[in-house]
């Protein structure tokens, strides 16, 4: 009720640009100092933390991969004992999937989606801060247990009964399950934020058919998270219940079932891989368009392909279970559905190729990574189609052939685009360019090293080498290739090292970038690099799919927003017609405390079920502190 207010509200109407900027930055900036940093809810700051954290986990996971490759370089090597090896491959897989690949994609969404849809902060920014602390603590839980030689040792999908109460003594499997709970929580939180940001906070005029493809891909990803993560939530909780309070979900002697775990896990686990891949597809679409110097070819088919992938993703899970003895006819249905997903994947590849063909490609580092992506992802996708065949998979399931498949799709299909995306958006995030020279070296070494490392694994698989073996016997014909792979991995690692050196160096002393170094078409380039706390001085009005390519005389913007409270525009779902001037919450330390309280409860419940009861009290307290209105201007209406 505006009447209640003492002071007349200050709007941006008629304000001079520099005065406006001063007011906005006063309203939106975090307070300085340590507590200010803990309390900030700026999506860019949080996204940057997320990204850095995820890359630290990539390095850690990568170092574990190096340890595995040393152990596997010779038959009967003694570098690692079996117990340590099992912890290592489990921690490598879990770190890469849950602490690197999924969070880094979410982090890119947290950074880019609000900027690309032209708003000032993500929806539910405090939830966003909460989600970061949660994933950080979840990651620490796993890695501290690894340092204490008590890391999970049951593989990244922790099949029961090996992970159950009888065969998985100690707390290792509980730590795995609880680490999963942490990552789920944070992923679900981010998914809700993305959905609401995209639905409700798009700049006026950004109707559905003008949403940038990256935002579409993130939206579909968020929906997959929302539908798939409850399954893993259920799985990890019931596993802990079985272990802690003796429920019988997975005990065949008491009416439970070992395969139930596999169904529930893969009902999440398959969609998980598209949670990782779809954002990458969005990045590729963006980079291809920018460096082909033309709008993407086949916008609508691409959006449809993303959505189709998202839907089909839920009908494939059994292809991870082809040899568990399910009825053959049912399995063949999952062969058909898995093959069917090649069609939307093909549409994507063909549209990108067509864009390149129609455009005038500029061979910058981001585009090189995208080209590398096309070469390798198609190999990985095709081996996916191979293992989708029941009889084919009967031979190669659980062998290095599958290891090759999923590294081709994960590294070639997701990490390559991600690295391209870092080169592409680094100037936006830091205000500085990365080095083209080092970028080319990094790309070359990573591309070459990757293929030399992982291509031979297909052959090892066909030669009968199972995965998850800590060693193999000298009389088996695998030693030569394994040594070759381990040496090639060094080339791969050296590429990564160059990438990290480049990133660190450029962060400090790269060439200043300016707002739009690539002459790109989407809204994030309409503001300064790095963007100010309030993102846009005035919220843009979108009149075309590539607003920066079609502007004639300056960027269309709105006026009339208040600048003395955190205010942004809420718009309608389909046409993005403005509906309200909504306020965005202020900084708050409560999400941090809520994350601490939640973590105490989750970690405590590894040891006693009572932690859930007593632990929920501090959680309730912190949540009330979080949501209780403080009577700021943001609370007015």
């Amino acid at each position, binding site marked *: 009720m505006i009447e209640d207010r003492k002071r007349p509200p200050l709007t941006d109407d008629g304000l001079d640009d520099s005065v406006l900027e001063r007011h906005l930055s006063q309203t939106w900036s975090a307070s300085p100092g340590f507590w200010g940093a803990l309390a900030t809810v700026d999506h860019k700051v949080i996204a940057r933390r997320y990204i850095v954290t995820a890359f630290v986990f990539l390095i850690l996971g990568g170092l574990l991969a190096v340890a595995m490759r040393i152990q596997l370089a010779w038959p009967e090597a003694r570098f690692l004992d079996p117990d340590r090896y*099992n912890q290592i491959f489990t921690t490598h897989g879990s770190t890469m999937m849950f602490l690197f690949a999924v969070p880094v994609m979410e982090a890119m969404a947290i950074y880019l989606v609000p900027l690309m849809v032209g708003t000032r902060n993500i929806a539910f920014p405090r939830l966003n801060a909460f989600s970061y602390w949660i994933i950080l603590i979840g990651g620490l839980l796993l890695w501290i247990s690894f340092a204490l030689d008590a890391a999970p040792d049951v593989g990244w999908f922790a099949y029961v009964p090996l992970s159950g109460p009888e065969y998985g003594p100690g707390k290792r499997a509980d730590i795995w399950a609880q680490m999963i709970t942490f990552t789920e929580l944070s992923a679900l939180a981010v998914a809700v934020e993305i959905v609401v940001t995209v639905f409700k906070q798009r700049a006026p005029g950004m109707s559905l058919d003008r949403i940038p493809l990256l935002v579409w891909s993130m939206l579909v990803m968020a929906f997959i998270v929302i539908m798939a993560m409850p399954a893993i939530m259920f799985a990890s909780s019931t596993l802990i219940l079985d272990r802690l309070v003796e429920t019988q979900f997975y005990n065949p002697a008491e009416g439970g079932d070992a395969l139930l775990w596999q169904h529930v896990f893969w009902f999440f686990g398959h969609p998980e891989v598209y949670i990782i891949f779809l954002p990458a597809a969005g990045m590729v679409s963006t980079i291809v368009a920018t460096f082909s110097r033309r709008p993407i070819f086949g916008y609508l088919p691409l959006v449809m392909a993303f959505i189709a992938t998202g839907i089909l993703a839920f009908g494939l899970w059994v292809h991870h279970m082809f040899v568990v003895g399910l009825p053959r006819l049912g399995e063949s249905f999952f062969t058909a559905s898995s093959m069917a997903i090649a069609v939307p994947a093909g549409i994507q590849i063909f549209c990108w190729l067509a864009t390149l063909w129609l455009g005038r490609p500029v061979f910058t580092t981001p585009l090189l990574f995208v080209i590398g992506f096309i070469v390798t992802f198609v190999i990985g996708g095709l081996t996916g189609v191979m293992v989708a065949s029941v009889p*084919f998979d009967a031979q190669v399931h*659980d062998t290095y052939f599958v290891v090759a498949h999923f590294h081709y799709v994960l590294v070639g299909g997701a990490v390559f685009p991600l690295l391209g995306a870092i080169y592409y958006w680094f100037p936006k995030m830091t205000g500085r360019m990365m080095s083209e020279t080092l970028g080319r070296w990094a790309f070359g070494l990573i591309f070459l090293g990757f293929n030399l490392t992982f291509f031979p694994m297909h052959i090892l698989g066909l*030669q009968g080498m199972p995965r998850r073996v800590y060693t193999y016997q000298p009389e088996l*014909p695998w030693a030569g290739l394994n040594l070759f792979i381990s040496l090639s991995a060094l080339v791969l690692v050296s590429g990564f090292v160059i990438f990290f050196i480049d990133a660190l160096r450029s962060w400090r002393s790269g060439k200043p970038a300016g707002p739009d170094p690539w002459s790109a078409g989407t809204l994030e380039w309409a503001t300064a690099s790095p963007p100010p706390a309030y993102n846009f001085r005035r919220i843009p009005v979108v009149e075309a799919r590539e607003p920066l390519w079609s502007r004639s005389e300056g960027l269309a913007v709105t006026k009339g927003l208040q600048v003395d409270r955190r205010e942004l525009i809420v718009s309608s779902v389909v046409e993005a017609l403005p509906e309200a001037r909504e306020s965005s919450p202020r900084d708050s330390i409560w999400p941090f405390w809520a994350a601490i309280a939640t973590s105490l409860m989750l970690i405590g419940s590894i040891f006693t079920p009572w932690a859930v009861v007593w632990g929920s009290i501090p959680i309730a307290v912190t949540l009330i502190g979080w949501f209780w209105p403080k009577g700021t201007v943001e609370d007015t209406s």
Partner: protein
Amino acid sequence: MKCNSILLLLAFLISGCSGAQSVLNANGHAAIALKELILAIVLVCSAVWFLVMIALVSALARRRIRESDAISERKATVVVSGAVGATVLVVSGLTIASFHTTRALSEAEDPELTIVVRAQQWWWQFTYVDPRSTETFVTANELHIPIGKDVRLRLESGDVIHSFWVPSLAGKQDLIPGRENILTLRAERPGVYRGQCAEFCGLQHSHMALFVIAEGVADYERWAEGQRRMSVDPSEAEAVAGKAVFMARQCAACHTIRGTGASGTTGPDLTHIGSRRTIAAGLLENTRGSLAAWIADPQKLKPGNNMPLVPLTSDELRQLAAYMEVLK
């Protein structure tokens, strides 16, 4: 350049894969059908990859002719639609081929022989079931089958999930506690085929191998006859002493030697251990030396396995190994 190296690798793949445990060294009815399918699918998919690469290179290297954007765009639409259509056709074809081969793998109607395979951490137990119950016998880690006959394996697990996989003979099949799976083997040629547990099952998953010995019917029958017999009574002094040690120490609590008082079931049946090629699930060749090494300290050779170190004097050790060796 990259294409060349991949071609080289492919050539290597086709020619250089005749290891003891290889998908491409197919000698079983099922494995041969699988190998044909695998090669066909790999071929089709490689062709698809090359086509995509040609498209990529031409998109990147294309000389930009000055035709109007509208014409190029229309061309691109036609090509992309065509490619999507072709994708539908190819994956439909692959699905049908796959389905066809799946049917060829279905269970045999009327198997010659039924063997119960029981997997446990980290070895294999084989029970040759005979309707005449006295003729049933148990052995471990070494499966003998007659060639040209359908052999039905009933797959069970004693603890966690394992997977039975002998790539030269057939695809893999999991062994799951609380469930029973069936796998049919038919070896077309005699030979010794290595297999290995393919589902991660804990510490010694890496050392859970087995051998399938496929032999002519007469040889097979001779072997089975030998297995049905009680264990031999040793005559040589050292072995006699070894038998006494075996019965006196914990060994008998875990192992069965038919015809003696030893009837434990935690470990492999040792009635005819001397006739097996390897010990401890393919870990070591079966010699007197390796037997002694194994018994002296199983935890050093296969860390974490379920046979404990039993303290023995070196004499006892020698005697035990001698006894094991005569149990042909």
